Structures are given as structure tokens and as C-alpha cells.
């Protein structure tokens, strides 16, 4: 893990260690509490991985055993064979492909449109700008369920139900107000002289955006990219509404499909947890690699109020 390097420039880490009355009671209590919280956070993760490696007879013993004996990593292959036997065509590659297809298109649309819209909301003066921006932020409060029924009817009219369209290209219309907000905060911090100089040199808006702004906003784009990848990879509410053919399902829906088709017999938790681990793994890897971007993205709202 690259845990310690990324935040090396943290103010607190660089400060001299607290005065050397080293482990006094106060510090012991602090670390004990941090460790207890850490265990509470970790146990479900460990249990998920542990279960995914167990044989069925190890599941319902009533004992807490984190080390599977024997360990069966084959569960990760068998689960896809099982899924494929319930519904031929639901192969590992197909389901991962579906998930990636949706995720990448939606992510690209979100980043691209958010950067353009935020550019318009931050670097230009025009009447009505602040009012429109306030309206955009207010839409965060609208629960998705209100727009879901009419949204479904629109896609039905267009004949695009059970396609990936509702999940991908609407992202080009900057459907995530939060990303526009994050991007705008970043744009506002760029000095105005840069554009003025470029304008004097004869650059037009597209050139300024492409050659000056894009390189500068790369850090916040990366932050939005990881948040957006996570959001779309994990998305369940969209796909469950629009997709009905099992072969088209992304991972989240495939898991539900597997769960529902097994609910007649005893739930086979080793397979379910293998699937959950597989779905979580890319996101967790991305998180460990890009923790700085993740934590920046989620913290900005708190700092800027």
C-alpha cells in the first residue's frame, strides 16, 4: 500500500513528535480507541473475503473463523459457472464488459460536460449566472424517485428501454451538479491574468480552454474521475430501472439476479461473497492508488462550506 507517501506533505506529519513523555495514559487511550474503530471497520471486509474462500460446510458452524480451512479460491470461478448455468450468456467477460462500457461512457460524459459548464459558470461575467448556478445546486435536493417515473416514460417513448442509452449519454448534459460545483471552485482559484494574456496573444475561447485551462484543472479532473468511476461502477438504481435482459446486466444487477435465482434454495454465501469481493476489488484498488483524489473530492464541500 502507498499509504504513507501520499500525505507526506501533511502539516501534522511534518511537525515534531509530541513531547517525549511518550506513551502516557492519554495517548494509550487515543490509540486504543482508534484501533477499536479500525477493527470495527475492517471485520466486515475480512468476513466478506473469508466467506468467499470457504466450503459450504464451513458457513453455518456458528463459530467465528476468519481463516478458511480448506480455502477454495475456485469459488471465484465456480460462481460464474453457476451464473452461466442459470442463464447462458452471463459470462464473466460479458458482465465486466457491460459494467465497464456503462462506467467509461458515463464517466467521460460527466467529466467533459462538468468542465465545460463549470468553465462557463466561473470564468465569464453574464447576467443570470449566479441565479442559474444556485438553481443547479438546489437540484441536488430533488430525490431521484420523483423524476424516475416520467424519466422511464421518456425512454419508453424513445424506444430506448433495455439499452445502455439512459445510463450513458445523458451524462453529457452535466447531470452531476456536485461535479460542476467542485470544478467551478477550482476554476475560480485560477488567476485571471492567464486568460487576459492569452487573449492579447490572439487565442480564442476553445484554445484557452484546451491549452491553458485543461492542463491546470487536471488535478480536480482526476478527483472527479475517481468519484465518477466509483459512482457509475456501483450504480444500481439506474440499471435496475432500464435494463431487463440478463445478458445486458452490469455487475450490480448480475449480483441481484444471482441472489434472486438462488433464493429458492439455501443462499450460497460463499458465491455471493466471491461476487461481492470481485465487484469491490477494482474500486478498492483504485481507492488505494488514488486516495488523495478521493479524499480531496469528498472533503472540499466541508472546507468551502
Amino acid at each position, binding site marked *: 500500500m502507498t*499509504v*504513507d507517501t501520499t*500525505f507526506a506533505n501533511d502539516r*501534522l506529519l511534518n511537525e515534531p513528535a509530541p513531547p517525549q513523555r511518550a506513551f502516557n495514559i492519554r495517548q494509550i487511550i*487515543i490509540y486504543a480507541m*482508534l484501533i477499536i*474503530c479500525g477493527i470495527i*471497520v475492517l*471485520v*466486515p471486509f475480512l*468476513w466478506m473475503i473469508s466467506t468467499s474462500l470457504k466450503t459450504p460446510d464451513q458457513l453455518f458452524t456458528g463459530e*467465528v473463523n476468519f481463516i478458511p480451512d480448506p480455502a477454495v479460491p475456485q469459488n471465484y470461478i465456480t460462481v460464474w459457472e453457476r451464473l452461466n448455468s442459470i442463464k447462458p450468456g452471463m459470462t464473466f467477460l*460479458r458482465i465486466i464488459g457491460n459494467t465497464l462500457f456503462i462506467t467509461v*461512457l458515463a464517466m467521460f460524459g460527466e467529466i467533459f460536460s462538468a468542465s465545460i*459548464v463549470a468553465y*462557463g*459558470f466561473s470564468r*465569464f*461575467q*453574464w*447576467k443570470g449566472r449566479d441565479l*442559474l448556478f444556485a*438553481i443547479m445546486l438546489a*437540484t*441536488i*435536493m430533488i*430525490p431521484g*424517485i*420523483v*423524476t*424516475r*417515473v*416520467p*424519466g422511464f416514460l*421518456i425512454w419508453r417513448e424513445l424506444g430506448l428501454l433495455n*439499452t445502455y*442509452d439512459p445510463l*450513458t449519454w*445523458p451524462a*453529457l*448534459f*452535466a447531470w452531476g451538479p456536485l461535479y*460542476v460545483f467542485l470544478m467551478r471552485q477550482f476554476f475560480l482559484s485560477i488567476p485571471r491574468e492567464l486568460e487576459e494574456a492569452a487573449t492579447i496573444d490572439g487565442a480564442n475561447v476553445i484554445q484557452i480552454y484546451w491549452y491553458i485551462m485543461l492542463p491546470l484543472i487536471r488535478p480536480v479532473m482526476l478527483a472527479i474521475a475517481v468519484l465518477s468511476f466509483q459512482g457509475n*461502477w456501483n450504480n*444500481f438504481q439506474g440499471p435496475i*430501472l432500464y435494463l431487463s435482459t440478463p445478458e445486458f446486466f452490469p455487475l450490480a444487477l448480475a*449480483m441481484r439476479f444471482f*441472489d434472486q435465482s438462488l433464493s429458492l434454495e439455501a443462499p450460497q454465501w460463499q458465491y*455471493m*461473497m466471491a461476487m*461481492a469481493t470481485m*465487484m*469491490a476489488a477494482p474500486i*478498492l484498488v483504485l481507492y*488505494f492508488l488514488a486516495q488523495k483524489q*478521493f*479524499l480531496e473530492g*469528498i*472533503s472540499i464541500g*466541508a472546507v468551502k462550506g
Partner: protein
Amino acid sequence: MTDPGALNTYLPTLIRYLLVMIGIGVIMVVVYRVQRALGVKQEAATGRTLVVPWIIGFVIFTVFTIGASFYLSFTEYNLFSAPEWVGLENYQDLFDVSAGTLESREQRSTDVLERRHQEIVRVEVGGGGFVFGAREHAFWRSMRLTLLYSFISVPLGLFGALGVALLLNQKVRFLSFWRVLYYMPAILPAVATALLWRWMFSQNGIINSLTAPIWQGFGWEAPRWFTDPALALPAFIIISLWGIFGANSVILLAGLKGIPQELYEAAAIDGAGSWAKFRHVTIPMLSPALFYNLVTGTIGALQVFEIAAFIQTPAAVGTFLNWLIYQEAFNLRNMGMASAMAWIMLLIILALTALIFRSSSAWVFYQGAREEAA
């Protein structure tokens, strides 16, 4: 529908994706030209043109859908025949509630409520009590579950997070390690979280194994978390706390680190102890972050979906509103009734948010605001 193969399902969407992109570009050029022709200055015209993609999406996917949803809430619509105007009937059905007085604890609530009404809330007073019921009991039970869940889990999660954030702010070693660790649950896909906790809370699950000394000590049977009406809510709250307290504490920690050290030094010179510093420096300076978490946390908690989709609860408990409305619309195909329910939910969210915003002037401290006033 038969499966046309991977490529044939991706390609049409990809083509339409590119066409929409080109379409947006063309519209933007037209909007810009029209503005310039009307004599708008270049800067204003450019700014407006750049936000056009959002305006199009806003009009189609927000304004239009909200209007349509409002209209549908006054209709009966099952997708197969045209929507039929029924006026306030959906809302009247939803608010068809009744109350009754119970003479004794043993008396059944159906005896005192109107016909076809079922109990939602019972208030026990002495030997008897009051009971409230409704015809659309599934809706009101879900409302009860969702509201209780939000009102308990959000403040609890915020206080817990504040505690952890304060711990992390005590110059601990390996700060980034703790931060990465505590944020992990928020990364886990909601679908995986729901399944994992259903497994952990199952009859022979790890939770019952770990707590066996407690319930066996009392001589009880193993708790059935999601079938016992009394235990479902606590189980959901535990899941929610695990999912959010770490993420909240990371956000609050960012707020804590933004507090200038000079403020604490000035307070120390004025003779403030640690409690006074916490009460008069930390809390006011942190209040914008607390406020932000409270608003987003409440809006999020009211809209829980995945947990309800994967964890079944007994009818007496109800399910989460978001999932109930989804079922009403897409399984029962009562689009009109579902829209009415969604509108009630929207109004509740707006009212709660307004309440938090109104109260915020009393307890949220914005540094900039104070300076401007001076």
C-alpha cells in the same frame, strides 16, 4: 428479448452517444451565433453558451420530469392505457388515516380503527392507549421506518464522526493510514454492503456468533434481525453507522485542520481551558462542515435504496420509502399512486432541508459573513 451479442448491444449506444455529442456542439454554436447577432457582448455570449449543455439537460430531465410527475400524481396510469385524471384521489387515499382509543393492552387495534385500516403507531398510556392507523398502511409503515432511520442514524453518525475526527486531530502518528482505513466502507458498492450485512446478520451469521454470550446469558433465542419487527430498525442503523461514520470523520477532520492555530493560541492567552476552546473555537469553526454533513446525510438517508432491495423486512416493519415507491411504480404499475408518494417524499425532504437551513443561522458560523458585516 434474445441476446444480440455484446458488440451489437454496445455499438448502437456508442453511435447515439457520438451523435448526441455532435448535436450538443451544433446547438452551442447556434446559441452563440444568435446571441452575437442580437448584439450580446462576446464574454457574456461565451459564458451562456458554455452552460447550454446543462440547461438542455435541466429542462428535459428535471423541469419536464418534475412537471410530468406532478401531473401523473393526479391520475391513474398503468402504462397500458392513457393516464386517467382522478383529481386528488391518490392523495386522499394516502391520507385516509384514523385514530382510536384502546381500553386495554390486549385489545386489538383493528377493533377501534376504521374498516381496512391497519395500525401504524401506538402510544401506550397507563392500561390503554391511542392507536393510529391508515388504509395505505404499507406506505405509512415505510414512512415510519424511513423517518426513524434517518432521525436516529444521521445525528448518531455525526456525533460518532466528530469524536473520531477529534481523536485523529490529536497529532496521532500514521494519520494518512487511519484516514484511508476509516474511509473504506464508503467505497464499498452499496450492493455489496447490503449483501454482506444480510449475511452477517443472518441466523447463523457472525453477529449472532459474536454476541452469543449476551443473548445466551439472558436465556434468549438467537436474534432474527430482519424478521423480528423490533430488531430490523436497530440492524439498519448499525449498517448505516458502519457505512458513514468513517467518511464523515474524514470530512470533519478536513474541517478541523482548516481551523487556524492562532485562534487556539488567542483563546489560551485569554485563559480558556480545553472545554472552553472546544466549545468556543472548535464548534463554531467546524459548524459549516457539520451543517454540510447534516444536510447531505439527511437527504441521503431518506433515499436509501440498495439496502431495501437486498434485505426483505416483515410487513409490520415496512420497507424504505424509495424502494416502496419503486415497487409501486414498476412492479404494481400504479404510476399515478407512485408519483403521489414521490411528491410527498419530495415535500418532506424540502421541508427538512428548509428547517435545517432556517435553524443554521442560529448555530452555523461563517467566518467570511462576520467580516463582511464588520
